[in-house]
């Protein structure tokens, strides 16, 4: 039995290997803020959000659509889904609280605990079945429909009855019957528990009229070593069944755990949705395009991390960059270039894991890797060691490139002079674009931007941070030709305004 709420045909693996650059992505895109908003201080939700979001680049288009449908159900029936989630959490907690006993691990204590656990699990399974009976028709997604149908099919009344019979028989009211063979040194071997015989004619009275020979002996009341030996013998008989039962309990626990894990992702999405709705920020289910296409168009795309930090709706951008593989973003300092770059990365990741996007509309092709190359601010000295470090990271990225990767470059190769940096960047970017890699490049390297602009290539788009004539920044990104300055003098002017007055005299 599987929940299959994350994938049509397989479980969501919380232990799956995350992309190699998960730490860099987390840092560069500010993902912790997103995860925290989804988790609402719940460690488990946080972990699931982290894995689901970061591993989305390994999922395919069909999976995205599958999850979008499930998520829509969840948003529609938030309370029902929440109560189902709470039930799994409770069940898992209760299992943990069932006592192992104080005499260490013996087959009989393992057996008894497993019986207790299974009795509790049967309660939860019954509730789940009822849940399915009651609400199945309210859910529209393929994922939930299949899930409820599975519950009804697998957990019918006959099945519950069969389990109850086992749990009763495992009390062994009529003794423990064990078969054995002769092993090494003629000691008993292959001990095997035989099904208790219940009310059938006693085996002594069976057979063809003649009684088969039976020999019986008794352990004397005061024979302590005999009693120990006898319980050892019983343990050999119970060992396998205790194992089978405890494993069954584990498997059912595994089912609940999986159900909890998969629901947790949607609970996280629901949490985020609620927060964004409260601040009036728009969300939309994105329109994913195939891997081999090159699509990007959006309206009111905003940096969800920034919105969550400031607690209100923030400026969004519209981009129409379908069929473009290279976007070069230049323009004013503090004009929102980095924020824009981040919003592209975040929306892509959210789309790939099946979530809504922080925008009024968002459409992009799927990518099979999301890579970021950001300037590491902590050691921003201009020296060759820094450039060496940057190129080292670039090398690692190139080593991990996939045919449909999305690469976000933020102020890369600025650790040397403009001409050299531009030339390095030009060579790298040209080569990667020719390989079909989609690149968003925020840069101050005018020579680089100008060079690409003058080539008038159809696949490139040039964006700039908007600056009004009066120097005011709107934090909007608009299409525009690269300019010589990044308006640092605006900043200078502002910061040195008073000095300038003073010096001017």
């Amino acid at each position, binding site marked *: 039995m599987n929940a299959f709420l994350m994938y049509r045909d397989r479980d969501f693996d919380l232990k799956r290997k995350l992309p190699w650059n998960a730490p860099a992505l987390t840092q560069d895109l500010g993902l912790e803020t997103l995860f925290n908003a989804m988790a609402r201080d719940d460690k488990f939700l946080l972990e699931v959000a982290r894995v689901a979001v970061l591993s989305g680049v390994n999922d395919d288009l069909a999976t995205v659509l599958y999850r979008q449908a499930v998520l829509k159900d969840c948003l529609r029936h938030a309370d029902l889904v929440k109560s189902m989630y709470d039930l799994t959490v409770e069940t898992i907690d209760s299992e943990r609280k069932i006592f192992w006993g104080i005499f260490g691990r013996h087959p009989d204590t393992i057996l008894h605990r497993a019986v207790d656990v299974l009795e509790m699990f049967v309660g939860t399974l019954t509730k789940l079945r009822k849940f399915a009976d009651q609400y199945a028709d309210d859910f529209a997604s393929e994922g939930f429909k299949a899930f409820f149908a599975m519950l009804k099919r697998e957990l019918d009344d006959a099945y519950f009855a069969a389990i109850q019979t086992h749990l009763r028989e495992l009390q062994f009211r009529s003794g423990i019957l064990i078969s054995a063979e002769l092993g090494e040194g003629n000691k008993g071997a292959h001990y095997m528990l*035989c099904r208790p015989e219940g009310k059938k004619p006693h085996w002594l009275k069976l057979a063809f009229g003649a009684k088969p020979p039976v020999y019986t002996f008794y352990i004397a009341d005061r024979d302590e070593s005999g009693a120990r030996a006898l319980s050892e013998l019983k343990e050999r008989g119970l060992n396998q*069944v205790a194992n089978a039962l*405890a494993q069954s309990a584990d498997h059912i626990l595994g089912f609940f755990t999986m159900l909890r894990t998969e629901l947790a992702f949607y609970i996280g999405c629901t949490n985020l949705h609620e927060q964004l709705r409260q601040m009036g920020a728009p969300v939309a289910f994105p329109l994913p395009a195939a891997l081999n296409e090159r699509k990007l168009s959006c309206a009111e795309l905003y940096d969800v991390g920034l919105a969550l930090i400031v607690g209100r709706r923030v400026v969004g951008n519209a981009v129409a960059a379908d069929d473009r593989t290279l976007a070069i973003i230049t323009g004013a300092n503090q004009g929102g270039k980095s924020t824009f770059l981040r919003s592209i990365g975040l929306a892509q990741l959210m789309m790939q894991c099946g979530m809504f996007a922080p925008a009024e509309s968002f459409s992009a092709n799927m990518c099979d890797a999301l890579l970021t190359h950001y300037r590491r601010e902590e050691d921003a000295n201009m020296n060759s060691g820094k450039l060496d470090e940057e190129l080292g990271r670039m090398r690692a990225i190139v080593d991990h490139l996939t045919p449909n990767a999305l690469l976000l470059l933020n102020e890369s190769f600025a650790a040397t002079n403009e001409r050299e940096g531009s030339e390095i960047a030009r060579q790298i970017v040209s080569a990667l674009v020719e390989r079909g890699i989609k690149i968003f490049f925020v840069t101050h390297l005018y020579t680089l931007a100008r060079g690409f602009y003058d080539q008038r290539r159809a696949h490139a788009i040039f964006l700039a941070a908007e600056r009004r004539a009066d120097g005011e920044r709107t934090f909007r990104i608009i299409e525009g030709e690269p300019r010589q300055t990044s308006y640092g003098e605006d900043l200078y002017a502002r910061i040195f305004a008073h000095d300038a007055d003073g010096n001017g005299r």
Partner: protein
Amino acid sequence: MMQIGPFRSILFKNVEDSARTTTSEAPIFFVDLNLDQVIDAITAGKQEYDLRPFYHTPLHELDAVAYRHEVMRDLEDKALYEMIASFGRKMRDMRERLAQADKLHYKYQKESWFLSAVEVYCDCVSRLAEDLSQADLKSRGFLALRAFVADYVASARFTTLVAETQKLKADLATVRYCILIKGNAVSVRKHAGESDYSADVERTFAKFKQGAARDYTVRLPMWLEMNHVEAQVLDMVARLYPDIFARLDEYCARHHNYLDETIGVFDREVQFYVAYLEYAALFKRAGLNFCYPQVTADDKAVYDDDGYDLALARKLIGEQKPVIRNDFYLQGQERIIVVSGPNQGGKTTFARAFGQLHYLASLGCPVPGREARLYLFDQFFTHFEQAENLQNLHGKLEDDLVRIHEILAQATPHSIIIMNEIFTSTTLQDAISLGKKVMEQISARDLLCVCVTFLDELAALDEKTVSMVSTVAPDDPTVRTFKIVRRPPDGLSYALSIAEKHGLTYRQLREPGGGA
């Protein structure tokens, strides 16, 4: 085609040699040459075979050496080696089972262990016969063994043993019984087709199964002994199957002496080779060579390429450090290698390696190196510096002289002698003159000799001496290469280069700012 006599021993061409000469006491030079460590390592884990006497007893006949070389070469074939190793493992298994039978108390349990020991023996010998019949054998030893084993497994004595053992085993395997435990009552009867309840339970919950599950099976203690409850159950099982258990009793009484003596001796002796090859494999894996030396009794032009000290090499391999190999050769009149040069430069190691090579060659074993010719000595002597012996009231110098006198008194022209730093406890003048005298004696007796010394003067005594020197890295004289090369002593340039490194040569001191 070689003439093959009846098989007696895989180790000794003449079986009389074995009884006559093997000794459990190590030769006195073992410690000096670190051969004690070598033999310890070779025999480790094989104490039950008591192999040391074989390793303590050099051979003195060229053909005896050849006999072992042949066997060892046969065993270098991986397939045959594995067959013999497996034979050894099974025989060990058999012995353990017999020991177990001995230790236990309940009759049916003892009998079962005895039966299983015989079963292992039958299987092991049959397998050996089959393996040998298919093996490509060239040695006199193995060819004779093959003939012997083929006869033995075809004998009525052996075939009856096999048949009876198998029948009894098969019958015991048919025994299947049920135990019903209720309260303090234990009932035993034959099994009547009841099914496995655990499997039932598993089937019921199978739909939840996902992936591998944690194993909850408790590791119940597996005592070899039986407790009295088990014994009572077994007695009842015997009553349920009276015929089988009666035959078991009778079998054990009748096959008490099943083990063939020649097989038993072979099992022990062949371990001499197995142990050595196992040991050599350790070095081969590390890229070091072993070779079959040409062993001579008349030609003293010995040599070895890429040799090394086994005890040291083993330690270095363990520490994943490189092992330095050295060559030597003697030609024409040359008999004496005088080793000098910087301390800690590998001189003693070189001398030990020379000794180990000759000793191992005398055992009929392959030796470290790519190619070698080695001399089959009659006696082997070492004189290594020892702590002062307070008991004999002699001074150290006197001890040295007494010991060397003894050696020279016993040595024949066929002996080998290794001297390490003699006469260190006297003046340089004394050491040189005493050293020269001793060397002259050795030279006069035409002994093969390695002499490690700090006395350069001994290096060019006469046409019989060859000088070898431990060397340092050309660019940093404080770094030893542990290479011992054949060339005149060059102690002076070594000292100068150290001085140069410290900026204390004349030229350096006269340079501006050089300090003088």
